[in-house]
C-alpha cells in the first residue's frame, strides 16, 4: 500500500520538463526535422539515437535555441520549458540558455584558465556577489564534473592544456556552473577514449539527480547504459520514443529494430 504511494510520488516528480509538439525545422528549403512530438522528463536522462544526419543535433539545438545563430535555419511548432513557450517573441534566448545549458561534441574550453572557464557563466549572469562565492561555485561545479581533484592545484592553468576527457568534463563543469535546469549534450563522448567516456557516463548518471539531461549519441550501448528514456530519429522523423529498456528489447517500429540490430546506420 505504502509502496504504491511512494512509487506514484516518484513518478510525479518526473514531471515533463520540456515538451515539443509538431516541431519542424528547415535549413533553407531542406526539411531537417519533421513533425516531432516529444516530452522530456525532469531528472531523467533522455537519449537521442539515430543514424548520422537524421537530425538529432538539429533537434537538440532547438531546445536552447542555438539554431537562432544559423541564418538559414527556421523552426516551427511549439516547444515549452515548464509550460512556457521558448519560441515566444518575448523570450530572450540568452536568458533561456542560462537555464538550458549545452555541452558540445568537440570539447571547446575557452583559451583561458580553468578557473575562468567555470567562472564565466556565473559572472555574466550576475549569479555571484563576491569572490568567495565565485570560488565556491567554481569548486562545486568542478567537483560535480568529477574534475576537482585533478585540477585543484592548477586552477590558473589554461583549460586548453588539459587532456581531451578532462576538457570535456571542464565543459560540463562550465555548463553546470550556471545551475541550469536542463543539460543538453551533443555526442559528448565522441572525441574521447574509452576511459574518459566511462568517466563522463558516470558523471551523467550523477547529474540526473539535479538536472534533466538530454544526450545525443550514436552509440547504442551508451544510450542503453546511461539513459532512462530513448528517442530514435530517422531521416528527420521521431520514429519511436519510450523507456530505454523497452526500445532496446522490444522496439515497436521495424526501422528501430533494423537500426538496433545494425541493419541501418
Amino acid at each position: 500500500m505504502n509502496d504504491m504511494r511512494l512509487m506514484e510520488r516518484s513518478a510525479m516528480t518526473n514531471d515533463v520538463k520540456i515538451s515539443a509538439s509538431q516541431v519542424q525545422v528547415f535549413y533553407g528549403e531542406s526539411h531537417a526535422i519533421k513533425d516531432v512530438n516529444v516530452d522530456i522528463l525532469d531528472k531523467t536522462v533522455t537519449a537521442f539515437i539515430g543514424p548520422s544526419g537524421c537530425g538529432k543535433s538539429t533537434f537538440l539545438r532547438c531546445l536552447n535555441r542555438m539554431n537562432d545563430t544559423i541564418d538559414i535555419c527556421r523552426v516551427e511548432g511549439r516547444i515549452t520549458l515548464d509550460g512556457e513557450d521558448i519560441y515566444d517573441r518575448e523570450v530572450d534566448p540568452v536568458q533561456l540558455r542560462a537555464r538550458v545549458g549545452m555541452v558540445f561534441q568537440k570539447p571547446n574550453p575557452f583559451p583561458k584558465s580553468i578557473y575562468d572557464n567555470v567562472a564565466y557563466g556565473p559572472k555574466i549572469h550576475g549569479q555571484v556577489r563576491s569572490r568567495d562565492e565565485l570560488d565556491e561555485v567554481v569548486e562545486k561545479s568542478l567537483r560535480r564534473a568529477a574534475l576537482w581533484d585533478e585540477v585543484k592545484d592548477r586552477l590558473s592553468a589554461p583549460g586548453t592544456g588539459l587532456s581531451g576527457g578532462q576538457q570535456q568534463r571542464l565543459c560540463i563543469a562550465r555548463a553546470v556552473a550556471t545551475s541550469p535546469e536542463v543539460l543538453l549534450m551533443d555526442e559528448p563522448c565522441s572525441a574521447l577514449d574509452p576511459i574518459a567516456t566511462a568517466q563522463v557516463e558516470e558523471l551523467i548518471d550523477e547529474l540526473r539527480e539535479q538536472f534533466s539531461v538530454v544526450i545525443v549519441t550514436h552509440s547504442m550501448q551508451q544510450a542503453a547504459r546511461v539513459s532512462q528514456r530513448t528517442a530514435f530519429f530517422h531521416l528527420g522523423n521521431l520514429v519511436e520514443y519510450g523507456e530505454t529498456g523497452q526500445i532496446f528489447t522490444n522496439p515497436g517500429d521495424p526501422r528501430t529494430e533494423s537500426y538496433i540490430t545494425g541493419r541501418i546506420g
Partner: protein
Amino acid sequence: MTDASAQFEGRGRPSLRVQDARTRRRNAAEKRFRAYGLVAIGVGILALFVLLASIFGNGSSAFFQTKIQLQVPLEEKALDKSGTRDPEAMKKVTTVGYGRVLKAALADLIAREGIEIDGLSKRDIDSFLSKEAPAQLRNHVLANPDLIGTTIAFEVMTNGRIDGYFKGRVSLDSAELDSNVSPAQLHLADALKDRGLLGTGFNLDFLTAPDASDQRPEAAGLGVAIIGSAYMMIVVLCLALPIGVAASIYLEEFARKNWLTDLIEVNIANLAAVPSIVFGILGLAIFINFAGLPQSAPIVGGLVLTLMTLPTIIISTRAALRAVPPSIKDAALGIGASKTQAVFHHVLPLAAPGILTGTIIGLAQALGETAPLLLIGMVAFVREYPGAPVEGFFDPASALPVQVYNWTQRADPAFVERASGAIIVLLAFLVVMNTIAIVLRRRYERRW
C-alpha cells in the same frame, strides 16, 4: 601494348635502379621548375640588393656632416648694444650681425694657424661656412644671453660643397667650374682638417632639424617631416582602428547576409584597390574645400590616409575574426552569453593579434604613401615645427615620403644625399613596424 604487359610479368621487370622514360621526364620537369624558382628568387634578391646598396651608398653620408671648431668671441658691442642681456632687445641683431662675427672668427683662426693659401680671397672665407650657421649661433646666444662677453667654442657647419668634398661629391676639378666653391676653399678645408680643426662627425641634426632652402642643403633635416608623419600615424591609428574594427565586427558577427552586405563587401574590396591619388582628390574636395580644414596639416593627411587604410584594416580584421573557431563562440552562447558578450569576451581577444598585425601593415602602407599628400599641400616648404598635439595636428607640416619627393626635385646635388638619407629613415621605420607585426603574429599565432 605487348611490351608493357611483358614488363609486368614476373622476372622480366626492369630493375628499379634504371629510370624509365616517364620517370626521367618527370624528374627533368621537377629540376627545371626548381631552376626557375631559384632564378626568380635570385632576381628578387639581386634587385633588393641593388636598391639597398644604391640607397645606402647615396644616403648614409647624410647622417654625417663636416663641421669646423671655431673660437667665437661674443662681444657686447656687436651683439647686445643695450647691455641688458634682455633677449627681446638682443633680437634686434639679425643673422647678418652674427654672420659677421663668425666670419671674423674664421679669418682669425686662419691667421692664428698661419695658413697661407694661394688665391684665397675674403669672399672665399666668407662663404666657407654654412649660411645656416649664423642662425644657429644666434639661437644659441638668445637662449643663453649670459654668454655675451665671453668667447665660446662653437661647432659650425661648413658650406655644403666643402661637406661634399669630404664625401667625394666635389673635387678640385669640379670646383674650378663651380661658382659656389673655389679650389682655394678646398685647400683651406684640407689644411684645417690636417690641423684637426675640421672634421666629419655624426649629424643628429639630420633627424631633428627642419627643412632648409635650396642654398643650404647641409642644414636640411627631417625633424618636421618626422613629426608630421608621426602625427598622421596617430590620427590614422585613432580613427582607422576603432572604425575598422567596429565595422568588421558588425559585418562579420551581426549583419545578416543579404544583398546589401554583399554590396558593402564588394565595395570594401574595391576600395582597397582604388589608386591612392584618388583619395587625395577626395580629401582635397571634402576636408579642405568643403570642411575648411587647413592645407598642409597632418589632420587632413591623417584623415585621407585613414580612408585609405580602412579597407586594409577591415579586410584583415574580418579575416582574423573568421579565423577564430566558431566552437568558441558556440561555447559562450551555449552558457547564455549574449552575442555581444561572446564577441567581446572571446572572439575579439583571440582575433586581436591578427587585427594588430593588419593594422600595423596598414599603418606602414600609410606611412609610405605620397601621392594623396601632394594633393592636399603637404609638399609645402615648412620650417616651423608643428605644435604639440592636439593643436599641432592643424599646423602645417611635411611628411617623410613627401620630403623625399621634395628633395629629389631640388637642383643642388647635395639634396640627392639628403633624399637617400630620408629614404633610409623611412625604411627603418617600415622595417621596425613590419618586424613588430611579424613578431606579434608569431607569438600569438593560434593559441587555442
